[in-house]
């Protein structure tokens, strides 16, 4: 495979959800160079002042916590060879046509579907894009990568716990 794949990875802006991206990158054995787009559903609302006054970037800056950004940076420095770029984006509608256009317009070549992952949203405007993507129809999507990622059931004491100490993590020595 040549060129760079642009991969859509669903997220809910928690550090825990970065495990989807990690899982994807660890399964990426042939070191395909990728550009990760972390996408979350977000309803911009219908207030005219809100729509005029706030851009997508403002919303994104508010949604991404400090730890989330640090987690992203960590993944980027861990997979420096394969991850060309990594950024967050918002799907602002559940409309199937909008989603299809979004995928086409942004030239998404792969969509990651974490089948068993339970998103946790801390913002009332956010919505789960898994169902939206599925509603669009798998044939409309680019190449789909299904990953069996399970959400972290235990309550982490530190949010950063999520991307460490995952199952099967490498123990250096004991």
């Amino acid at each position, binding site marked *: 495979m040549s060129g760079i794949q642009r991969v859509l990875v669903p997220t809910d802006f928690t550090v825990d959800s970065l495990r989807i991206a990690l899982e994807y990158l660890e399964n990426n054995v042939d070191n395909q160079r990728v550009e990760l787009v972390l996408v979350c559903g977000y309803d911009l609302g219908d207030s005219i002042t809100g729509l005029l006054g706030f851009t997508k970037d403002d919303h994104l800056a508010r949604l991404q916590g400090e730890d989330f950004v640090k987690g992203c940076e960590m993944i980027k420095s861990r*997979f*420096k060879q394969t991850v060309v770029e990594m950024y967050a984006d918002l799907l602002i509608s559940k409309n199937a046509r909008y989603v299809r256009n979004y995928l086409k317009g942004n030239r998404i070549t792969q969509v990651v579907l974490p089948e068993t992952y339970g998103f946790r949203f801390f913002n009332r405007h956010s919505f789960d894009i898994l169902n939206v993507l599925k509603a669009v129809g798998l044939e409309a999507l680019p190449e789909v990568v299904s990953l069996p990622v399970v959400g972290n059931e235990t*309550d982490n*004491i*530190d949010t950063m716990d999520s991307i*460490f100490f995952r199952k099967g993590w490498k*123990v*250096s*020595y004991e």
Partner: protein
Amino acid sequence: MRNYNNTLYALIAILVIYTVAFVGFIMYSITNFAFADFYKRLDLRRNLAAEHMFNGKGSHTGWSLTYVEELNNQREFVIEFDGKSSIIHTTGFDTSLWNQVQKTGESNFKVGNTFYSTKYYPYKGKHYIVGVSAENYFYTHHLNYLRNLLLIALVLGVLFVIVVSLLVKRSFIKPINELIDEVKKIGSENLYLRLSEEKDKGVLNKLANTFNRMLNRIETSFETQKNFISNASHELNTPLTSIIGIADLALSKERSVEEYKQAMLKIVDAAEKLEKKTSALLLLARTGYENNNLNFKPVRIDQIVMDAEMTVKAINERFHIKTDFSMLPDDSMKLKVNGSAPLLQLAISNIVSNACKYSANHTAYVALGAFENGVLILIKDEGIGIPEQELAYIYDPYFRASNTANFSGYGIGLPLARNIIKMHEGDLSVSSTLGKGTTVRIELPTIKRL
């Protein structure tokens, strides 16, 4: 402080002088205007009176004195004189004012509240002076009112200036005084206290921040010293006790030369141990705690973490450490931290050994990752945790949480580790759930690449 006050008083004086000058200027210009205006009105009435007198009632101007508004106490007068200075005849003129009247032209003057306007007229070979006098109502009433008003305004203004200046002075000095009070509270017995820093980036905040950094350094060296002394005294005591014991035993009764030799050999043995320990302590002191700020060198944090783990395992073989290096970056430059390796190792080994000590399975989980401009070390255990209401005190030296009675310790390790991390401009935070475990997160800035 004296200098401060002098500046303040100078400022108050300038403001007061300005206010007084302003009030004076207003008073002067209004009075001037009132006089000029009133003399003009008097001149008009005098001209009309003269016309009335010399031309009779059939004056062709079409209007006369009766049409003009009567002024307060208005009085017309005519003086007939000999052309020099002697009055021949006068109607209603106070002769004592004769000196002030111009004998050849127009003159305006004022006596008390009464204003005079006079003019010389030659008529049919005789010399007349026609004049009008009236009281200036504006001058007597309105200007008085204005003067009182300005005086009150002046007094209030000066008071305002003084009060505001003092308030400003107080608000300037207050934070400094607070800072002084806070610094006074800090002594050698409560070095863990810090000055409160606000969010803003003011000069005072910088000062507080500088003080706090200095206190960090002082506290760290204090603690290391205390630690060192308690460790050292304990370590030195053991061989000394055995030396004294052996000697006592040998001296308790008469013994053979062989027995004395044996005892001496044992004493030499113990003394050698003692010597080794003192030299080790000296080495520790030399490498670790001397000029630790000056010899910061680029060190690899993964190496330090591994060394720290080795140290912990060497101390207690029941301790297990599980390391997650899965997030190690591809680029090893991202792991380079500017710091002192022995100090960082001390800090990390302290936290790791705490994690092992306070958990039933004696296992610590250590993870390492690099973000954009720093590294993150996570040390996690599944131990007893820290009660939530005590989390605020865990950085105080000698503080031990209420659930640690069954564990030995002095309450020095965590404050020491935190101070070391702070010296490296890093951040140490602890989050914990009682009964579930504790996670310590250390963030250290990496070396900035040019």
